[in-house]
């Protein structure tokens, strides 16, 4: 079934279409949530809340071609994940670095297999991981991240710097387990 047809059926509250949409995207969206949340049960809760919002708001979705639905759902999952994180983590605790920061080069890191990169990112502490995900993977600017997490841009830059530094260290040590 085409994405646009699936959307139309979901907009009519068709339970089968909703289940089909869930079956198609639950896996990747769960891994997206897990990349932020890191705790399986909580990631499942976030996924559930996100899907409920998807189905309740799908009438407002305007398709812009294949793939736009997944992009829209990813945004919802990310927002839900950030909401969950904001309730449990203070992103302002990281000390902001002064002056211009030369970020560590992650070229070696980028040569790893996709699943290895995913696992190493998931092992980052919450603050580092969140900023790294938003900036490097999702492509948000530090200005946007500052608005999303109610932090300063400098804090965002500092956390990204520390995240990359830690990733590099993990790579040199051949893997690193870091607590949240």
């Amino acid at each position, binding site marked *: 079934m085409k994405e646009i047809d699936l959307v139309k059926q979901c907009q009519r*509250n068709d*339970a089968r279409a*909703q*289940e089909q949409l*869930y*079956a198609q995207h*639950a*896996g*990747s969206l*769960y*891994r*997206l949530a*897990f*990349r932020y949340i890191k705790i*399986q049960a909580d*990631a*499942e809760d976030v*996924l*559930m809340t996100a*899907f*409920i919002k998807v*189905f*309740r708001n799908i009438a407002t979705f305007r398709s812009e071609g294949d793939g736009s639905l997944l992009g829209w759902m990813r945004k919802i999952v990310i927002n839900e994940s950030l909401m969950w994180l904001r309730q449990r983590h203070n992103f302002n605790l990281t000390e902001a670095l002064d002056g211009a920061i030369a*970020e560590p*080069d*992650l*070229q070696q*890191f*980028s040569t*790893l*297999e*996709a*699943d290895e*990169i*995913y696992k190493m*990112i998931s092992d980052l502490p919450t603050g580092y991981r969140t900023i790294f*995900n938003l*900036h*490097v*993977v*999702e*492509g948000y600017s530090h200005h946007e991240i500052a608005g999303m997490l109610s932090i300063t841009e400098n804090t965002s830059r500092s956390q990204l710097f520390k995240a990359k530094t830690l990733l590099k260290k993990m790579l040199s040590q051949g893997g690193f387990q870091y607590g949240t």
Partner: protein
Amino acid sequence: MEHNTDNIIGNKVRDAEKMTASFKHADVWNKIHAELRPQTTSMMHYYVAASLLVLVITLAGYFINESQGKRRDRQLGLMEHTVEKYVRQRSTAPPVNCYDNSRVITNTEVCQSNHRTRKTVSDANAEVRQSVEIQTPLATLHETDAIVKEEVILPVVATVSDNNSVEPIIGVIIPQKKIIAVVKERKFKIRLFKIPDNSIEQKNTDPTMIFARIN
């Protein structure tokens, strides 16, 4: 360079998300479904309740109209039958001279009078004379050579006479306080008189109607 590295990492991470994820896929769906279902169910209940309400109102309206229609038809039919019968008999029979100028007799008495039962009519006169005062006409309907159907909220007595007021007059009262006079074939003048309250119920054994007869 750095930006390019970030893009490569970002693409790889998104690729990694396409891999099979092990989580409680069915449990999460069941929770989502359970969360969405009450909304669907309540909407369905709303529609069913609204439909039932509309159905009940429609049926009630139908039956009320039906019963009112039947009652009216019954009254009209009875009235038409009685008045037509009376008019038909009057048109072929000579005038009956045994009535007072102002009196009310029952349906039965009219029939009896048409059969020239002087004794019964006389008895009826004695009863009716005490019952109803015919007062100044409340209204006089126009003469007609067709069917006259008129409903008046009342209490009234309706009288029907021909134009020269020589012929006997007939009136019809329905105890439900509506009056309908139906006359065919001949030109009649219909006059409506107010009658005292309770007089009909007290003095007439036939609850469906009485006939007034005056000059």
